[in-house]
């Protein structure tokens, strides 16, 4: 009867792969060391895969009900889909960025622009470089760091 006990490994493997995938955007993307490469998730995937292998071997052992084999197969397939989607989005899709070959290079003049700040005030790059606008505790800056980001849209 021992073989008919609850196959916890297969469930643990499935749930762990799910938790590992979710943990990246929710937790590990916050710090550069765990964000630049999702190694925490990949480590957890290794553990999840090991659990799945044990679970599949249990499910397909002789004397095990068909129901158990089907459940193990479905959970394994779902886990592989989860892992596949995660790896695809973090390692492949994340590189689908425009080449930006026309971006100003080192030594070139940075194109000027006039944009509206969070207070509704229009400021230009030359103003940012030459004055202490924006309520910051700074005299005339030595330089400006432009950080372009995707935004909420």
């Amino acid at each position, binding site marked *: 009867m021992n073989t008919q006990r609850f196959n916890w490994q297969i469930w643990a493997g499935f749930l762990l792969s799910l938790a590992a995938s979710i943990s990246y955007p929710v937790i590990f993307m916050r710090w550069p060391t765990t964000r630049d490469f999702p190694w925490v998730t990949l480590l957890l995937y290794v553990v999840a895969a090991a659990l799945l292998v044990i679970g599949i071997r249990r499910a397909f052992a002789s004397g095990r009900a068909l129901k158990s084999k089907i459940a193990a197969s479905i959970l394994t397939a779902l886990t592989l889909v989860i892992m596949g989607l995660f790896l695809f989005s973090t390692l492949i899709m994340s590189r689908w960025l425009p080449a930006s070959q026309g971006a100003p290079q080192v030594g070139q003049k940075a194109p000027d622009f006039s944009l509206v700040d*969070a207070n509704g005030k229009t400021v230009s790059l030359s103003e940012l470089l030459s004055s202490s606008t924006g309520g*910051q505790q700074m005299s005339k800056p030595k330089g400006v760091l432009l950080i372009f980001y995707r935004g909420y849209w």
Partner: protein
Amino acid sequence: MCHSELRSIEKNLDKFHQAGIRPVAISVDNPEINREQMVGNAGYTFTFLSDPNLDAIRRYDLVHAGAGENGHDIARPAEFLIDSKGTVRWLNLTENYFVRARPEQILEAAKTVSSEQ
């Protein structure tokens, strides 16, 4: 949305100011979103600029066509360090969305800019 890069700038804002570097964030978000979300909710204290028509984003060749919600054009992540004469001194065009410039890296690159008159 992941703020880890912007948050790391905010955390190191004193160091940037000491180096004479003013961080300025630019996205397609409108000023209302920047005021409510970035300055209000997230508590950023450096400058946030709105580029809903992608004027600056296009001029810097950073348009990521259709990559935003509902197929909006947005900016790809990028960082530029510009000196007081308006010359680009350092830039980072990441090849991977999840890999961004770190504050230490930017401050290191800013050293020559900071030491100028």
